[in-house]
């Protein structure tokens, strides 16, 4: 039974991990805590839903398209809004994404009503048995997909010139700009990449999850806690934190009661962060 729960938790954790990775990337590069991340996951889920119902494209197969769309959308949002508050005071940087989140959630409510939607007949459905463990195929596919995308982003950051430049910025912004790195261009790319992660995660989620305007809010909050748990600025920490949270949610939810699962996540965050105020793998001042 515990094995079953842990497996479920790991699957969930992988998807959280992808969302959290995007969040961590954005924070690492430009110091913005993206409170609108959940809203972007939600927008990606709707994009995936419309691709499915208008063009008949399965959400899992549509993942690259949605990720690409969200990347472009991220660049636009960065150029029009985020880039302009980067030099502003701490509180403006903290609140601007709150505004974005409220805006997009209610835009979705206005455009698509609060009704629940769902993708029927996704290509990944059914349950397979692995020894004593039931595995829901859509969740397995989504978590593998998440790990693949996370791997790609990791490869991009570690092996390409642009990726290395992005890392250089997150380590020392001033030194990086003195070395001739174009901060504005790379900030935009990093923001786009962060949203692409949210987009891929949203598209993978759309294959088995209900879609409604507020769906992303909890994903965003949980991912935020995962990032803080792992430590702001650490991409690997975000993934580790997210997987830990996935397991806490499913195992704790079973032991204490499903209605308390989010309370348990937040409690775990507080307990860990009180012992280690910078998260498990974090560095930097705050």
């Amino acid at each position, binding site marked *: 039974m515990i094995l079953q729960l842990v497996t479920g938790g790991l699957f969930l954790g992988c998807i959280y991990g992808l969302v959290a990775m995007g969040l961590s990337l954005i924070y690492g590069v430009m110091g913005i*805590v993206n409170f609108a991340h959940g809203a972007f996951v939600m927008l990606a889920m709707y994009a995936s839903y419309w691709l499915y119902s208008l063009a008949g494209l399965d959400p899992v197969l549509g993942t690259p398209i949605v990720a690409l769309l969200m990347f472009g959308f991220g660049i636009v949002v960065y150029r029009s*809004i985020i880039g*302009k*508050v980067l030099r*502003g*005071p*701490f*509180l*403006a*940087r*903290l*609140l*601007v994404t*709150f*505004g*974005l*989140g*409220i*805006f*997009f*959630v*209610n*835009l*979705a*409510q*206005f455009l698509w009503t*609060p009704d629940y939607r769902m993708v029927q007949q996704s290509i990944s459905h059914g349950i397979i048995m692995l020894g004593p463990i039931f595995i829901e195929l859509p969740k397995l596919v989504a978590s593998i997909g998440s790990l693949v995308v996370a791997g790609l982003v990791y490869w991009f950051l570690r092996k390409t010139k642009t990726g290395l430049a992005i890392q250089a910025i997150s380590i020392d912004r001033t030194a990086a700009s003195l070395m001739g790195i174009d901060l504005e261009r790379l900030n935009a790319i990093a923001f786009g990449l962060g949203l692409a992660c949210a987009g891929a995660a949203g598209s993978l989620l759309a294959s088995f999850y209900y879609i409604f*305007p507020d769906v992303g809010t909890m994903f965003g*909050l949980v991912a*935020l*806690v995962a990032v*803080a748990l792992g430590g*702001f600025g650490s991409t690997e920490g975000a993934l580790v934190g997210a997987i830990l949270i996935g397991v806490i949610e499913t195992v704790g939810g079973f032991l204490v*009661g499903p*209605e*308390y699962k*989010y*309370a348990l996540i*937040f*409690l775990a*965050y*507080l307990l860990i*962060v*009180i012992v280690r*105020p*910078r*998260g498990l793998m974090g560095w930097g*001042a*705050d």
Partner: protein
Amino acid sequence: MRDNGQRQTISLIAFAAVGLVLPLAMKARFAQHILIMVALYAALGEAWNIMAGYAGMVSIGQAAFFGLGAYVSAFLFVEYNVNPWIGFVASGLVTAAFGTLVGLPFSRLRGRYFAIGTIALGQMIKVVFENWQRVGAATGLMLPLVDEGIVSFQFHTTKLPYYYIAFAMLLAVMAFMRVMERSRMGYYFKAIRENEDVASGLGVNKTAYKLIAIAVSAGVTGMCGAFLAQYSLYVEPEYMFNHTISVTIALIAVFGGAGSIAGPILGAAILIPMSELTRAWLGSGGTGIDLMIYGAFIVLMCVYEPEGLMGIVQRANRKMIVRRERRGSTRCPNS
């Protein structure tokens, strides 16, 4: 020319006078409702300002204190028939104690970790109240109607007394902050905000002062919650612990100008009527347009006026001083 402190006292008295006569000019029930909400949220913004604007601990979980305060007075009234005024004071004491209790571990957290910790706290306490049968779980508590009067803290024929209670709360917080600003405590708060390591190196007991800031802020926020419980005669977790309340409180202070007494009042005076009016005009049917406008407004504000409205006021002030000096005045401005 008068010194800064005297000028502040005079503005405070002028503000009180305007606030006292304002509802006499605005007699419509809806207009008075908006006035009550402005006064309430201005007080909430000031309370947020004490811990965030002055002591530098940015909270996005004030709804935890707000909801707890509302529940304390409502529960005492519904279950034990305790007079709402006693419940009102009890709310302040309980939330202040609660703030100190959670503040102890929280005072180790900084910046973003603190902010996210407060979000976590707000969500946790909401879940607890949603599942706590003794306080009505997700349905909440309905406060019984009693004869109206100042003793029973219920008014049915007119909203005016509610306004004066909220306004008195606001004035009390403002007076406290006015004293705090010039006291040793106020300077310690600012020192902690600017650099807590240096502050504690200079001998400021940072944990103690952080706890005081949290306790005062929580206590005032809890009493505001108790007030709203009494005003709406209904408490439920979804409403009282709503994350939007936390964001709105922070926003009002930031929008007006964090770290000043006038800031949250300016912020509330503009944001609350805007949100109440758009909700009344466009909010019916749950289309979300009202909150869409609200969200867009936050974004525009952060992009174009990141220092808050107080930034505009200060710029105008500076311009005036420059103009006065250009006119060739030889008088020393501080004499």
